[in-house]
């Protein structure tokens, strides 16, 4: 903490201005507590009717609310996982490129260019995904099914439109790329210079230096960056809602027309036309999403804090 310590001995003089000011900052902090509590309370309160009602009242007449939300949870996790698998290697590559390969002078500009991706609103990515990306990758999907259909992931029949979960995951991957890249880059740049120079002085190539000094140092940072990216991918709404062709199924197939939907996209698609207890059901799925992202973010923070304890950088 950077604050001045209280003067020792004797009670400090408290002035009215001081009291008002410190009280108001305290109230602001408490407001955050209240807001978060309100979010939780209102979500729970609005969810209860959906949990208590006869499942026959819900859309699609599932056997229970959990049967309704199950495929959505699967779709949410599955799409976010694919997105992470696609984005993580690329993000690490970019982070290394900017921190250790690109010329020093260019590094910040290149970083800024990648950050530009984060400036594109999700609805624009959705529009781009459906109008440009989906038609562009469809021939590739046909190729995959024709030649690699024996791999369950690429089993047919191929989607004729390219609006599959893989396309949605690609869009998600592009969207979480800047976050993972920015955080990983920061961590890589914090690698103690002495470690790097020591490795190079021993005759290591640049790659060997990276594997010996940079990556071990940055591992937990990269993990937390990946988790934060995963959290973002889990909650991303519009891009998935616009790109995906959704069904209520649990399926690992990547390039067919029948794809599991995600919680967030399901809410966005159905909310404007929902009424009665179905609104509560959608809010209840939102609560489930909240819990999932909370867990993921919690793991990320935990990784960061663990790193703080062990690294000498901070």
């Amino acid at each position, binding site marked *: 903490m950077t604050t001045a310590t209280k003067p020792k001995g004797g009670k400090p003089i408290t002035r009215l201005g001081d009291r008002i000011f410190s009280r108001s900052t305290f109230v602001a902090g408490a407001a955050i507590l209240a807001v978060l509590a309100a979010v939780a309370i209102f979500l729970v309160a609005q969810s209860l009717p959906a949990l208590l009602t006869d499942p026959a009242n819900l859309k699609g007449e599932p056997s229970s609310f959990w049967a309704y939300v199950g495929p959505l949870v699967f779709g949410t996790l599955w799409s976010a996982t694919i997105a992470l698998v696609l984005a993580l290697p690329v993000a690490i590559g970019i982070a290394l490129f900017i921190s250790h390969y690109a010329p020093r002078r260019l590094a910040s500009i290149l970083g800024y260019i990648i950050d530009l991706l984060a400036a594109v609103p999700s609805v624009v990515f959705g529009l781009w995904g459906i109008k440009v990306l989906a038609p562009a990758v469809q021939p590739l999907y046909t190729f995959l099914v024709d030649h690699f259909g024996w791999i369950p992931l690429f089993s047919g029949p191929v989607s*004729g439109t390219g609006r599959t979960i893989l396309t949605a995951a690609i869009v998600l991957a592009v969207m979480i790329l800047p976050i993972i890249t920015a955080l990983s880059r920061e961590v890589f740049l914090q690698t103690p210079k002495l470690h790097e120079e020591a490795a190079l002085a021993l005759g290591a190539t640049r790659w060997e230096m990276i594997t010996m000094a940079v990556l071990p140092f940055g591992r937990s940072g990269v993990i937390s960056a990946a988790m934060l990216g995963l959290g973002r991918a889990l909650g991303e709404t519009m891009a998935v809602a616009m790109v995906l062709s959704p069904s209520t*199924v649990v399926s690992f197939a990547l390039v067919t027309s029948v794809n599991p939907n995600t919680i967030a996209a399901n809410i966005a698609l159905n909310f404007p036309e929902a009424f009665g207890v179905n609104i509560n059901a959608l809010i209840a799925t939102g609560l489930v999403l909240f819990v999932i992202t909370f867990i993921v973010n919690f793991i990320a923070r935990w990784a960061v804090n663990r790193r703080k304890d062990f690294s000498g950088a901070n």
Partner: protein
Amino acid sequence: MKSRNLIAAGALFGAVALALTGCATNETGTNDSSGSTSSLSGTLTGTGASSQGSAQEAWIAAFQTANNAVTVNYSPDGSGAGRKAFIAGGADFAGSDSALSDDELASTFTACAAGTSPVEFPAYISPIAVVFKVEGVTSLNLDADTLAKIFSGAITTWNDPAITALNPDASLPDATITAVHRSDDSGTTKNFTDYLHTVAPTAWDQDPADAFPFTTGEGAKGTSGVIDAVTNGTNTIGYADLSKAGSLAVASIKVGDSFVVPTAEGGAAVVNDSPVVEGRGAGDIAIKINRSTTDSTHYPLVLVSYLIGCEQYSDSAKGALVKAYFDYVTSADGQATAATAAGSAPLSADLSAKVAAVVATIK
């Protein structure tokens, strides 16, 4: 000092931004130079079927131009939401792809004067086209049985014997069919499945519903989503309002012994010849569409969308507004506007006389 600079800069930016978007030029100005002789004023809130959406837009535009002091908001939230909101008093009128159910009729209508019943009548008729995109195929003949099998996933390739038998001249490829359906609840799906269920009950054993009953095929949000998916995909087929089909190829449907191309006239004709549901109030024109018609001038795959209002509103000013609006919508002028803007089929003369009589009773 610095913070003051900052605040000034921020304020300037905000002021410029607001000045740039001061007011919409198409909204101001017309109010003062009103050429309209209308004495109506107020706000009408409607909600309901999205199928009527673009027709409502056109009606509202024309109605607001004629009555400057009136604002009509129609939010295309879906038929079910529309009926619900109307019953609960959240909307002044509702648009719905299906007539009020008996349960709903028995409930209390908050916006209506105590003891009076609602009115409902068809206002928007639109043929549903089966659109497809297959390389080298421009025309396609289908019967209800084949159509049902394609969308239920029983037929999966374009050169299936059932399809080639109906289209001996077409060169259909050995390719997988991507059947696109609506992923959201919609009256289009309900009418489409109602047709399939009525005409081909063995191939389509699911009851008609707003939600598409099978998990096969590809889902797309809204009419535009279906059109987009069919247009951008390959070897695709889907169903959508005829007006939105655009440049896509449209399949002909087997009616009796001939294959009928969807037209507005065909849609209007089948509605005109269909019976009204019995046992309802005088102000309730709910139509039971004759799906299994064999008349080749009919196109039975058609969507009928209703307007629902009160016979007598508890607020009489509201009643006058609704009456004027409904009057315009069902007039020949209003129907023609919808036909141009949304490609709907205008009400036939018979039907529109019946509807006009109902609208005249609104208070």
